[in-house]
Protein backbone atom coordinates (compact mmCIF):
# COMPACT_ATOMS: atom_id res chain seq x y z
CA UNK A 1 0.00 0.00 0.00
CA UNK A 2 1.25 3.43 -0.88
CA UNK A 3 2.03 5.65 2.10
CA UNK A 4 0.05 8.89 2.18
CA UNK A 5 1.86 12.01 3.29
CA UNK A 6 0.18 14.55 5.58
CA UNK A 7 -0.53 16.84 2.65
CA UNK A 8 -2.15 13.98 0.73
CA UNK A 9 -4.28 13.07 3.74
CA UNK A 10 -5.42 16.70 4.00
CA UNK A 11 -6.13 16.77 0.30
CA UNK A 12 -8.17 13.56 0.48
CA UNK A 13 -10.13 14.87 3.44
CA UNK A 14 -11.01 17.91 1.38
CA UNK A 15 -11.83 15.78 -1.65
CA UNK A 16 -14.22 13.65 0.36
CA UNK A 17 -15.72 16.51 2.32
CA UNK A 18 -16.15 18.95 -0.51
CA UNK A 19 -19.27 18.87 -2.65
CA UNK A 20 -19.27 17.02 -5.92
CA UNK A 21 -20.30 19.49 -8.62
CA UNK A 22 -20.06 17.01 -11.50
CA UNK A 23 -22.95 17.35 -13.91
CA UNK A 24 -23.27 21.07 -13.12
CA UNK A 25 -21.56 24.02 -14.75
CA UNK A 26 -19.62 24.74 -11.54
CA UNK A 27 -16.20 23.66 -10.36
CA UNK A 28 -15.19 23.74 -6.73
CA UNK A 29 -12.74 26.42 -5.57
CA UNK A 30 -12.83 26.53 -1.77
CA UNK A 31 -15.04 26.54 1.29
CA UNK A 32 -16.16 29.99 2.43
CA UNK A 33 -18.34 29.42 5.49
CA UNK A 34 -20.15 26.73 7.38
CA UNK A 35 -23.43 27.13 9.26
CA UNK A 36 -26.34 25.21 10.64
CA UNK A 37 -28.28 25.33 7.38
CA UNK A 38 -25.46 24.27 5.14
CA UNK A 39 -22.08 25.27 3.81
CA UNK A 40 -21.16 28.04 1.41
CA UNK A 41 -18.47 27.40 -1.20
CA UNK A 42 -16.70 29.53 -3.73
CA UNK A 43 -17.08 27.97 -7.15
CA UNK A 44 -16.29 28.82 -10.75
CA UNK A 45 -19.13 29.10 -13.23
CA UNK A 46 -17.45 27.48 -16.23
CA UNK A 47 -20.02 28.74 -18.73
CA UNK A 48 -19.91 32.40 -17.77
CA UNK A 49 -16.34 32.24 -16.51
CA UNK A 50 -17.05 33.96 -13.21
CA UNK A 51 -16.91 33.12 -9.55
CA UNK A 52 -20.12 32.43 -7.65
CA UNK A 53 -21.01 31.57 -4.07
CA UNK A 54 -22.81 28.25 -3.75
CA UNK A 55 -24.71 27.22 -0.69
CA UNK A 56 -25.15 23.48 -0.28
CA UNK A 57 -28.02 22.73 2.08
CA UNK A 58 -27.99 19.86 4.50
CA UNK A 59 -31.16 18.47 2.95
CA UNK A 60 -30.82 14.72 2.81
CA UNK A 61 -33.51 13.71 0.33
CA UNK A 62 -35.36 15.26 -2.53
CA UNK A 63 -38.16 14.14 -4.78
CA UNK A 64 -38.67 15.14 -8.38
CA UNK A 65 -41.76 17.11 -7.40
CA UNK A 66 -39.86 18.96 -4.71
CA UNK A 67 -37.01 19.68 -7.10
CA UNK A 68 -39.39 21.24 -9.64
CA UNK A 69 -41.06 23.35 -7.00
CA UNK A 70 -37.76 24.57 -5.65
CA UNK A 71 -36.60 25.62 -9.05
CA UNK A 72 -39.84 27.47 -9.67
CA UNK A 73 -39.63 29.24 -6.35
CA UNK A 74 -35.98 30.06 -6.83
CA UNK A 75 -36.99 31.73 -10.07
CA UNK A 76 -39.40 33.93 -8.12
CA UNK A 77 -36.71 34.98 -5.70
CA UNK A 78 -34.26 35.51 -8.53
CA UNK A 79 -36.61 38.13 -9.94
CA UNK A 80 -36.23 40.36 -6.90
CA UNK A 81 -34.18 43.15 -8.38
CA UNK A 82 -32.94 45.54 -5.76
CA UNK A 83 -29.43 46.90 -5.17
CA UNK A 84 -29.57 45.61 -1.60
CA UNK A 85 -30.49 42.04 -2.46
CA UNK A 86 -28.26 39.24 -3.64
CA UNK A 87 -30.75 36.86 -5.17
CA UNK A 88 -30.40 33.23 -6.08
CA UNK A 89 -29.02 32.75 -9.63
CA UNK A 90 -29.47 29.05 -9.90
CA UNK A 91 -30.72 26.05 -7.99
CA UNK A 92 -29.95 22.39 -8.46
CA UNK A 93 -29.22 19.04 -6.92
CA UNK A 94 -25.79 17.51 -6.43
CA UNK A 95 -25.15 13.86 -7.32
CA UNK A 96 -25.34 12.98 -3.60
CA UNK A 97 -28.87 14.41 -3.43
CA UNK A 98 -28.08 17.65 -1.64
CA UNK A 99 -29.69 20.84 -2.88
CA UNK A 100 -27.55 23.82 -3.83
CA UNK A 101 -28.13 27.48 -4.64
CA UNK A 102 -25.78 29.63 -6.64
CA UNK A 103 -25.56 33.30 -5.73
CA UNK A 104 -23.46 36.25 -6.76
CA UNK A 105 -20.11 36.14 -5.00
CA UNK A 106 -19.92 39.38 -3.05
CA UNK A 107 -16.54 40.78 -2.16
CA UNK A 108 -16.68 42.74 1.07
CA UNK A 109 -17.05 42.25 4.78
CA UNK A 110 -19.89 40.81 6.81
CA UNK A 111 -21.86 43.18 9.02
CA UNK A 112 -20.35 41.71 12.18
CA UNK A 113 -16.85 42.23 10.78
CA UNK A 114 -17.81 45.74 9.69
CA UNK A 115 -19.14 46.52 13.18
CA UNK A 116 -15.90 45.33 14.74
CA UNK A 117 -14.10 48.10 12.86
CA UNK A 118 -16.77 50.80 13.01
CA UNK A 119 -17.37 52.47 16.33
CA UNK A 120 -19.65 55.22 15.03
CA UNK A 121 -23.23 54.36 15.95
CA UNK A 122 -24.53 56.73 13.26
CA UNK A 123 -22.59 54.87 10.57
CA UNK A 124 -23.86 51.56 11.83
CA UNK A 125 -27.44 52.79 11.88
CA UNK A 126 -27.18 54.10 8.33
CA UNK A 127 -26.12 50.64 7.19
CA UNK A 128 -28.96 49.17 9.17
CA UNK A 129 -31.42 51.47 7.42
CA UNK A 130 -30.21 50.13 4.10
CA UNK A 131 -30.85 46.59 5.36
CA UNK A 132 -34.38 47.58 6.34
CA UNK A 133 -34.99 49.08 2.91
CA UNK A 134 -33.84 45.91 1.12
CA UNK A 135 -35.97 43.72 3.37
CA UNK A 136 -38.94 46.05 2.91
CA UNK A 137 -38.58 45.62 -0.86
CA UNK A 138 -38.63 41.83 -0.54
CA UNK A 139 -41.62 42.00 1.78
CA UNK A 140 -43.44 44.18 -0.71
CA UNK A 141 -42.96 41.34 -3.21
CA UNK A 142 -44.26 38.76 -0.77
CA UNK A 143 -40.93 37.22 0.20
CA UNK A 144 -39.64 36.87 3.74
CA UNK A 145 -36.03 36.01 4.45
CA UNK A 146 -36.28 33.84 7.60
CA UNK A 147 -32.57 33.93 8.41
CA UNK A 148 -31.58 37.58 8.86
CA UNK A 149 -28.43 37.94 10.93
CA UNK A 150 -25.18 39.94 10.75
CA UNK A 151 -23.46 37.05 8.98
CA UNK A 152 -25.97 37.25 6.12
CA UNK A 153 -25.43 40.96 5.54
CA UNK A 154 -22.44 42.14 3.55
CA UNK A 155 -20.91 45.56 3.21
CA UNK A 156 -19.45 45.71 -0.29
CA UNK A 157 -16.25 47.39 -1.36
CA UNK A 158 -18.09 50.62 -2.18
CA UNK A 159 -19.97 50.70 1.13
CA UNK A 160 -23.10 49.19 -0.40
CA UNK A 161 -25.24 46.98 1.82
CA UNK A 162 -26.31 43.57 0.53
CA UNK A 163 -28.61 41.05 2.14
CA UNK A 164 -27.47 37.55 1.27
CA UNK A 165 -28.71 34.04 1.51
CA UNK A 166 -32.28 34.05 0.36
CA UNK A 167 -31.96 30.28 0.12
CA UNK A 168 -34.32 29.67 3.02
CA UNK A 169 -36.74 32.44 2.10
CA UNK A 170 -40.45 31.86 2.06
CA UNK A 171 -42.93 33.25 -0.39
CA UNK A 172 -46.05 34.62 1.25
CA UNK A 173 -47.89 35.77 -1.83
CA UNK A 174 -47.11 34.37 -5.24
CA UNK A 175 -46.96 37.43 -7.42
CA UNK A 176 -45.12 35.73 -10.20
CA UNK A 177 -46.48 32.23 -9.97
CA UNK A 178 -50.17 31.54 -9.77
CA UNK A 179 -49.87 29.60 -6.56
CA UNK A 180 -50.07 31.24 -3.21
CA UNK A 181 -48.66 30.16 0.07
CA UNK A 182 -46.29 27.64 -1.41
CA UNK A 183 -43.08 27.01 0.25
CA UNK A 184 -39.98 27.84 -1.08
CA UNK A 185 -36.52 26.92 -0.65
CA UNK A 186 -36.21 23.89 1.51
CA UNK A 187 -33.94 23.15 4.34
CA UNK A 188 -33.49 20.29 6.72
CA UNK A 189 -36.98 19.43 7.87
CA UNK A 190 -38.62 19.91 4.52
CA UNK A 191 -41.24 17.29 3.99
CA UNK A 192 -41.70 15.18 0.90
CA UNK A 193 -44.38 17.46 -0.45
CA UNK A 194 -41.97 20.31 -0.51
CA UNK A 195 -43.43 22.33 2.31
CA UNK A 196 -41.37 23.04 5.35
CA UNK A 197 -42.87 20.80 7.97
CA UNK A 198 -44.64 22.47 10.86
CA UNK A 199 -42.37 22.12 13.88
CA UNK A 200 -39.23 22.49 11.81
CA UNK A 201 -36.84 25.14 13.05
CA UNK A 202 -35.19 27.06 10.26
CA UNK A 203 -32.81 29.94 10.83
CA UNK A 204 -30.31 31.00 13.47
CA UNK A 205 -31.73 30.75 16.96
CA UNK A 206 -30.33 33.95 18.50
CA UNK A 207 -31.75 36.03 15.67
CA UNK A 208 -35.03 34.23 15.09
CA UNK A 209 -38.46 35.18 16.32
CA UNK A 210 -40.13 33.17 19.11
CA UNK A 211 -42.68 31.73 16.68
CA UNK A 212 -39.88 30.64 14.35
CA UNK A 213 -37.94 29.12 17.24
CA UNK A 214 -41.05 27.14 18.13
CA UNK A 215 -41.16 25.82 14.57
CA UNK A 216 -44.53 27.43 13.82
CA UNK A 217 -43.76 27.68 10.13
CA UNK A 218 -47.30 28.54 9.11
CA UNK A 219 -47.27 31.50 11.52
CA UNK A 220 -44.28 33.17 9.86
CA UNK A 221 -44.81 36.44 8.07
CA UNK A 222 -43.07 39.79 7.62
CA UNK A 223 -43.13 40.34 11.38
CA UNK A 224 -40.82 37.37 11.90
CA UNK A 225 -38.23 39.19 9.80
CA UNK A 226 -38.94 42.34 11.81
CA UNK A 227 -37.96 40.45 14.95
CA UNK A 228 -34.71 39.39 13.27
CA UNK A 229 -34.09 42.97 12.16
CA UNK A 230 -34.57 44.00 15.80
CA UNK A 231 -32.02 41.36 16.79
CA UNK A 232 -29.54 42.72 14.23
CA UNK A 233 -30.24 46.22 15.58
CA UNK A 234 -29.55 44.90 19.10
CA UNK A 235 -26.22 43.57 17.87
CA UNK A 236 -25.30 46.92 16.31
CA UNK A 237 -26.14 48.74 19.54
CA UNK A 238 -24.37 46.37 21.91
CA UNK A 239 -21.85 44.37 19.87
CA UNK A 240 -23.49 41.27 21.29
CA UNK A 241 -25.94 38.75 19.95
CA UNK A 242 -29.38 39.18 21.56
CA UNK A 243 -29.76 37.87 25.07
CA UNK A 244 -31.95 38.55 28.09
CA UNK A 245 -30.29 41.88 28.91
CA UNK A 246 -31.72 45.16 27.64
CA UNK A 247 -29.42 47.02 25.24
CA UNK A 248 -28.89 49.91 27.66
CA UNK A 249 -27.72 47.48 30.35
CA UNK A 250 -24.97 46.24 28.04
CA UNK A 251 -24.15 49.64 26.59
CA UNK A 252 -25.22 52.67 28.68
CA UNK A 253 -24.53 54.95 25.71
CA UNK A 254 -27.58 53.55 23.91
CA UNK A 255 -30.34 56.15 23.97
CA UNK A 256 -33.80 55.32 25.28
CA UNK A 257 -35.44 55.82 21.86
CA UNK A 258 -32.87 53.51 20.23
CA UNK A 259 -33.56 50.86 22.84
CA UNK A 260 -37.30 51.34 22.36
CA UNK A 261 -36.96 50.73 18.60
CA UNK A 262 -35.02 47.57 19.30
CA UNK A 263 -37.45 46.26 21.90
CA UNK A 264 -40.48 47.08 19.77
CA UNK A 265 -39.06 45.09 16.85
CA UNK A 266 -38.19 42.22 19.17
CA UNK A 267 -41.54 42.11 20.97
CA UNK A 268 -42.59 38.54 21.75
CA UNK A 269 -46.12 39.38 20.66
CA UNK A 270 -46.05 39.76 16.88
CA UNK A 271 -48.85 42.31 16.95
CA UNK A 272 -46.71 44.65 19.04
CA UNK A 273 -43.86 44.72 16.51
CA UNK A 274 -43.48 47.12 13.61
CA UNK A 275 -45.91 46.20 10.87
CA UNK A 276 -43.21 46.44 8.21
CA UNK A 277 -39.50 46.94 7.65
CA UNK A 278 -40.26 50.33 6.06
CA UNK A 279 -41.89 51.50 9.28
CA UNK A 280 -38.87 50.42 11.27
CA UNK A 281 -36.55 52.08 8.78
CA UNK A 282 -38.54 55.32 9.17
CA UNK A 283 -38.12 55.18 12.95
CA UNK A 284 -34.37 54.65 12.58
CA UNK A 285 -34.29 57.59 10.19
CA UNK A 286 -36.07 59.76 12.75
CA UNK A 287 -33.63 58.58 15.41
CA UNK A 288 -30.71 59.65 13.22
CA UNK A 289 -32.37 63.03 12.61
CA UNK A 290 -33.10 63.50 16.35
CA UNK A 291 -36.82 63.44 15.66
CA UNK A 292 -39.30 61.69 17.96
CA UNK A 293 -39.62 58.00 17.17
CA UNK A 294 -42.90 56.14 17.17
CA UNK A 295 -41.60 53.48 19.53
CA UNK A 296 -40.91 55.86 22.41
CA UNK A 297 -43.04 58.47 24.18
CA UNK A 298 -40.85 61.26 25.54
CA UNK A 299 -41.51 63.32 28.64
CA UNK A 300 -41.21 67.11 28.54
CA UNK A 301 -37.60 67.14 29.75
CA UNK A 302 -36.55 64.61 27.10
CA UNK A 303 -38.35 66.61 24.42
CA UNK A 304 -36.44 69.74 25.39
CA UNK A 305 -33.15 67.85 25.68
CA UNK A 306 -33.63 66.32 22.24
CA UNK A 307 -34.58 69.72 20.76
CA UNK A 308 -31.55 71.31 22.33
CA UNK A 309 -29.33 68.52 21.12
CA UNK A 310 -30.68 68.82 17.61
CA UNK A 311 -30.45 72.65 17.54
CA UNK A 312 -27.25 72.99 19.45
CA UNK A 313 -25.83 75.68 17.18
CA UNK A 314 -28.94 77.81 17.39
CA UNK A 315 -29.09 77.45 21.17
CA UNK A 316 -25.45 78.46 21.47
CA UNK A 317 -26.08 81.52 19.32
CA UNK A 318 -29.05 82.58 21.44
CA UNK A 319 -27.09 82.00 24.64
CA UNK A 320 -24.18 84.02 23.30
CA UNK A 321 -26.56 86.83 22.30
CA UNK A 322 -28.18 86.85 25.74
CA UNK A 323 -24.83 86.89 27.51
CA UNK A 324 -23.73 89.79 25.39
CA UNK A 325 -26.95 91.68 26.19
CA UNK A 326 -26.49 91.07 29.89
CA UNK A 327 -22.88 92.17 29.63
CA UNK A 328 -23.86 95.42 27.86
CA UNK A 329 -26.65 96.10 30.36
CA UNK A 330 -24.26 95.79 33.29
CA UNK A 331 -21.44 97.75 31.66
CA UNK A 332 -23.77 100.60 30.57
CA UNK A 333 -25.12 100.94 34.16
CA UNK A 334 -21.68 101.12 35.68
Amino acid at each position, binding site marked *: *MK*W*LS*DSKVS*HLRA*VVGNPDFSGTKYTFVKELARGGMGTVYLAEDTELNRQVAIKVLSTPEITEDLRRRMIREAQIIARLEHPGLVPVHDVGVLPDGRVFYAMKFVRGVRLDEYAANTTSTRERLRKFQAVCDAVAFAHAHGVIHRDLKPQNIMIGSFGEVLVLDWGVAKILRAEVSSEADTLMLPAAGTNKAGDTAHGTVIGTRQYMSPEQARGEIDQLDERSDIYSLGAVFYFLLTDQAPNDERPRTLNPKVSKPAEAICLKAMARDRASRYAGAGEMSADVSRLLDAEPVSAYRENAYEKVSRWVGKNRFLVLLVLAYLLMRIFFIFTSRS
Partner: protein
Amino acid sequence: MDPDTDIGGAQQRFPVTNQSAIAAARSDDHVVRQRAFDTILTSYWKPAYKYIRLKWQANNEDAKDLTQGFFANAFEKNHFANYDARKARFQTFLRTCLDGFVANERKAGKRLKRGGDANHFQLDFLSAEDELAMQATQANDLNPEDYFHREWVRWMFTMSVEMLRERCQSSGRNVHFQLFEAYDLNDDDATTVSYASLAKTFNLDATTVNNYLAATRRDFRRIVLDKLREITATDEEFRTEARSLLGVDVK
Protein backbone atom coordinates in the same frame (compact mmCIF):
# COMPACT_ATOMS: atom_id res chain seq x y z
CA MET B 1 1.64 -7.75 -3.22
CA ASP B 2 3.45 -8.28 0.04
CA PRO B 3 1.75 -11.25 1.74
CA ASP B 4 2.45 -9.70 5.14
CA THR B 5 -0.24 -7.15 4.52
CA ASP B 6 -2.91 -9.84 4.45
CA ILE B 7 -4.82 -10.29 7.63
CA GLY B 8 -6.99 -13.35 7.69
CA GLY B 9 -6.43 -13.96 3.99
CA ALA B 10 -6.87 -11.75 0.96
CA GLN B 11 -10.62 -12.35 0.78
CA GLN B 12 -11.16 -11.09 4.30
CA ARG B 13 -8.80 -8.15 4.23
CA PHE B 14 -11.70 -5.81 3.60
CA PRO B 15 -14.81 -7.26 5.17
CA VAL B 16 -17.72 -7.00 2.79
CA THR B 17 -20.31 -6.01 5.34
CA ASN B 18 -20.61 -2.43 6.48
CA GLN B 19 -22.52 -3.27 9.64
CA SER B 20 -20.91 -2.23 12.86
CA ALA B 21 -18.05 -4.49 13.85
CA ILE B 22 -18.23 -3.01 17.32
CA ALA B 23 -21.79 -4.28 17.71
CA ALA B 24 -20.84 -7.61 16.14
CA ALA B 25 -18.06 -8.03 18.72
CA ARG B 26 -20.83 -8.80 21.22
CA SER B 27 -22.32 -11.56 19.11
CA ASP B 28 -22.74 -15.05 20.52
CA ASP B 29 -21.74 -16.43 17.15
CA HIS B 30 -18.02 -17.12 17.14
CA VAL B 31 -17.72 -16.61 13.36
CA VAL B 32 -19.41 -13.22 13.53
CA ARG B 33 -17.22 -12.25 16.46
CA GLN B 34 -14.08 -13.38 14.62
CA ARG B 35 -15.04 -11.30 11.57
CA ALA B 36 -15.72 -8.26 13.76
CA PHE B 37 -12.38 -8.70 15.44
CA ASP B 38 -10.61 -8.91 12.06
CA THR B 39 -12.20 -5.62 11.08
CA ILE B 40 -11.11 -3.90 14.28
CA LEU B 41 -7.62 -5.37 14.02
CA THR B 42 -7.31 -4.29 10.39
CA SER B 43 -8.44 -0.78 11.23
CA TYR B 44 -6.28 -0.20 14.28
CA TRP B 45 -3.15 -2.33 14.36
CA LYS B 46 -0.91 0.14 12.56
CA PRO B 47 -1.85 3.26 14.58
CA ALA B 48 -1.56 1.09 17.71
CA TYR B 49 1.93 -0.07 16.77
CA LYS B 50 3.14 3.44 15.99
CA TYR B 51 1.55 4.74 19.17
CA ILE B 52 3.40 2.16 21.26
CA ARG B 53 6.64 3.11 19.55
CA LEU B 54 6.07 6.81 20.20
CA LYS B 55 4.35 7.04 23.57
CA TRP B 56 5.90 4.04 25.26
CA GLN B 57 9.28 4.47 23.58
CA ALA B 58 9.30 0.74 22.82
CA ASN B 59 11.88 -0.65 20.43
CA ASN B 60 10.54 -2.28 17.29
CA GLU B 61 10.69 -5.82 18.64
CA ASP B 62 8.91 -4.94 21.86
CA ALA B 63 6.35 -2.87 19.96
CA LYS B 64 5.62 -5.79 17.64
CA ASP B 65 5.12 -8.13 20.59
CA LEU B 66 3.01 -5.63 22.48
CA THR B 67 0.80 -5.00 19.44
CA GLN B 68 0.34 -8.70 18.82
CA GLY B 69 -0.19 -9.30 22.53
CA PHE B 70 -2.73 -6.52 22.91
CA PHE B 71 -4.95 -7.70 20.08
CA ALA B 72 -4.56 -11.38 21.00
CA ASN B 73 -5.50 -10.61 24.58
CA ALA B 74 -8.44 -8.45 23.47
CA PHE B 75 -9.70 -11.25 21.24
CA GLU B 76 -9.24 -13.99 23.81
CA LYS B 77 -11.02 -12.02 26.53
CA ASN B 78 -13.43 -10.32 24.12
CA HIS B 79 -12.55 -6.88 25.50
CA PHE B 80 -14.14 -4.99 22.63
CA ALA B 81 -17.56 -6.31 23.66
CA ASN B 82 -17.26 -4.14 26.77
CA TYR B 83 -17.24 -0.91 24.82
CA ASP B 84 -20.02 1.53 25.78
CA ALA B 85 -20.64 4.19 23.12
CA ARG B 86 -22.23 6.49 25.70
CA LYS B 87 -18.95 6.86 27.56
CA ALA B 88 -16.37 7.51 24.86
CA ARG B 89 -15.45 7.15 21.21
CA PHE B 90 -14.35 3.64 20.33
CA GLN B 91 -10.96 4.99 19.31
CA THR B 92 -10.49 6.46 22.79
CA PHE B 93 -11.66 3.23 24.40
CA LEU B 94 -9.20 1.18 22.36
CA ARG B 95 -6.33 3.54 23.09
CA THR B 96 -7.11 3.48 26.82
CA CYS B 97 -7.19 -0.33 26.77
CA LEU B 98 -3.89 -0.32 24.91
CA ASP B 99 -2.30 1.98 27.49
CA GLY B 100 -3.55 -0.26 30.28
CA PHE B 101 -2.21 -3.36 28.56
CA VAL B 102 1.23 -1.91 27.91
CA ALA B 103 1.45 -0.50 31.43
CA ASN B 104 0.60 -3.90 32.91
CA GLU B 105 3.10 -5.65 30.70
CA ARG B 106 5.80 -3.18 31.68
CA LYS B 107 4.89 -3.45 35.35
CA ALA B 108 5.11 -7.21 35.23
CA GLY B 109 8.43 -6.91 33.43
CA LYS B 110 7.21 -9.36 30.87
CA ARG B 111 8.20 -9.51 27.28
CA LEU B 112 5.63 -11.31 25.22
CA LYS B 113 6.88 -13.63 22.57
CA ARG B 114 4.07 -14.70 20.37
CA GLY B 115 5.88 -16.43 17.57
CA GLY B 116 4.28 -19.79 18.18
CA ASP B 117 0.88 -18.67 19.42
CA ALA B 118 -2.31 -19.45 17.62
CA ASN B 119 -3.19 -15.74 17.54
CA HIS B 120 -0.13 -14.60 15.69
CA PHE B 121 -1.47 -12.05 13.25
CA GLN B 122 0.20 -11.40 9.92
CA LEU B 123 0.92 -7.69 10.21
CA ASP B 124 3.22 -5.69 8.00
CA PHE B 125 5.38 -4.12 10.69
CA LEU B 126 8.07 -3.40 8.14
CA SER B 127 5.88 -0.85 6.35
CA ALA B 128 4.98 0.70 9.70
CA GLU B 129 8.68 1.07 10.48
CA ASP B 130 9.32 2.66 7.08
CA GLU B 131 6.56 5.16 7.74
CA LEU B 132 7.92 5.94 11.19
CA ALA B 133 11.30 6.65 9.64
CA MET B 134 9.70 9.04 7.14
CA GLN B 135 7.81 10.81 9.93
CA ALA B 136 10.72 10.96 12.35
CA THR B 137 10.79 14.75 12.43
CA GLN B 138 7.01 15.23 12.63
CA ALA B 139 6.00 12.76 15.32
CA ASN B 140 7.24 14.89 18.20
CA ASP B 141 5.02 17.81 17.20
CA LEU B 142 1.90 16.10 18.52
CA ASN B 143 0.86 14.67 21.83
CA PRO B 144 0.47 10.86 21.74
CA GLU B 145 -3.35 10.98 21.60
CA ASP B 146 -3.40 13.34 18.62
CA TYR B 147 -0.66 11.31 17.00
CA PHE B 148 -2.74 8.14 17.37
CA HIS B 149 -5.74 9.87 15.78
CA ARG B 150 -3.68 11.28 12.93
CA GLU B 151 -2.18 7.88 12.16
CA TRP B 152 -5.59 6.26 12.32
CA VAL B 153 -6.91 8.79 9.79
CA ARG B 154 -3.92 8.11 7.54
CA TRP B 155 -4.47 4.36 7.83
CA MET B 156 -8.20 4.66 7.10
CA PHE B 157 -7.46 6.61 3.93
CA THR B 158 -4.65 4.26 2.92
CA MET B 159 -6.93 1.24 3.18
CA SER B 160 -9.73 3.08 1.39
CA VAL B 161 -7.43 4.00 -1.50
CA GLU B 162 -6.39 0.37 -1.79
CA MET B 163 -9.97 -0.76 -1.81
CA LEU B 164 -10.83 1.86 -4.41
CA ARG B 165 -8.00 0.58 -6.58
CA GLU B 166 -9.34 -2.97 -6.33
CA ARG B 167 -12.89 -1.90 -7.12
CA CYS B 168 -11.82 0.14 -10.12
CA GLN B 169 -9.72 -2.72 -11.45
CA SER B 170 -12.45 -5.29 -10.98
CA SER B 171 -15.03 -3.09 -12.71
CA GLY B 172 -12.78 -2.18 -15.64
CA ARG B 173 -12.41 1.45 -14.60
CA ASN B 174 -8.64 1.55 -14.58
CA VAL B 175 -8.54 4.97 -16.20
CA HIS B 176 -10.74 6.35 -13.43
CA PHE B 177 -8.27 5.21 -10.80
CA GLN B 178 -5.25 6.33 -12.81
CA LEU B 179 -6.75 9.83 -13.01
CA PHE B 180 -7.46 9.79 -9.28
CA GLU B 181 -3.94 8.61 -8.58
CA ALA B 182 -2.40 11.23 -10.85
CA TYR B 183 -4.43 14.14 -9.51
CA ASP B 184 -5.37 13.32 -5.92
CA LEU B 185 -2.50 11.06 -4.84
CA ASN B 186 0.27 12.73 -6.74
CA ASP B 187 3.08 13.68 -4.40
CA ASP B 188 4.43 16.33 -6.74
CA ASP B 189 3.33 19.91 -6.46
CA ALA B 190 -0.38 19.95 -7.30
CA THR B 191 0.09 22.92 -9.60
CA THR B 192 1.99 20.75 -12.06
CA VAL B 193 -1.08 18.59 -12.67
CA SER B 194 -4.26 20.09 -14.04
CA TYR B 195 -7.41 18.68 -15.56
CA ALA B 196 -6.18 19.97 -18.91
CA SER B 197 -2.81 18.23 -18.58
CA LEU B 198 -4.53 15.02 -17.55
CA ALA B 199 -6.90 15.28 -20.49
CA LYS B 200 -3.91 15.53 -22.78
CA THR B 201 -2.04 12.67 -21.11
CA PHE B 202 -5.02 10.32 -21.13
CA ASN B 203 -6.34 11.50 -24.48
CA LEU B 204 -9.67 12.58 -23.03
CA ASP B 205 -11.55 15.85 -23.03
CA ALA B 206 -11.50 17.98 -19.86
CA THR B 207 -15.19 17.35 -19.13
CA THR B 208 -14.60 13.61 -19.14
CA VAL B 209 -11.65 14.03 -16.78
CA ASN B 210 -13.88 16.13 -14.51
CA ASN B 211 -16.65 13.53 -14.55
CA TYR B 212 -14.33 10.54 -14.06
CA LEU B 213 -12.60 12.23 -11.16
CA ALA B 214 -15.89 13.23 -9.56
CA ALA B 215 -17.23 9.68 -9.86
CA THR B 216 -14.05 8.19 -8.42
CA ARG B 217 -14.03 10.64 -5.53
CA ARG B 218 -17.66 9.76 -4.89
CA ASP B 219 -16.68 6.08 -4.71
CA PHE B 220 -13.80 6.93 -2.43
CA ARG B 221 -16.07 8.90 -0.12
CA ARG B 222 -18.51 5.97 0.00
CA ILE B 223 -15.72 3.53 0.85
CA VAL B 224 -14.41 5.76 3.64
CA LEU B 225 -17.89 6.18 5.11
CA ASP B 226 -18.61 2.45 4.83
CA LYS B 227 -15.39 1.68 6.67
CA LEU B 228 -16.24 4.27 9.27
CA ARG B 229 -19.66 2.74 9.80
CA GLU B 230 -18.00 -0.63 10.37
CA ILE B 231 -15.93 0.63 13.24
CA THR B 232 -18.47 2.81 15.01
CA ALA B 233 -21.08 1.44 17.37
CA THR B 234 -24.01 3.82 16.93
CA ASP B 235 -25.41 6.20 14.32
CA GLU B 236 -24.53 9.13 16.55
CA GLU B 237 -20.94 7.99 16.90
CA PHE B 238 -20.80 7.44 13.15
CA ARG B 239 -21.98 10.98 12.45
CA THR B 240 -19.59 12.44 15.00
CA GLU B 241 -16.66 10.52 13.56
CA ALA B 242 -17.65 11.44 10.00
CA ARG B 243 -17.63 15.10 10.95
CA SER B 244 -14.33 14.72 12.77
CA LEU B 245 -12.70 12.67 10.02
CA LEU B 246 -14.12 14.33 6.94
CA GLY B 247 -15.84 17.49 8.09
CA VAL B 248 -19.07 16.31 6.46
CA ASP B 249 -22.60 15.84 7.71
CA VAL B 250 -24.01 12.44 6.89
CA LYS B 251 -27.40 10.91 7.32
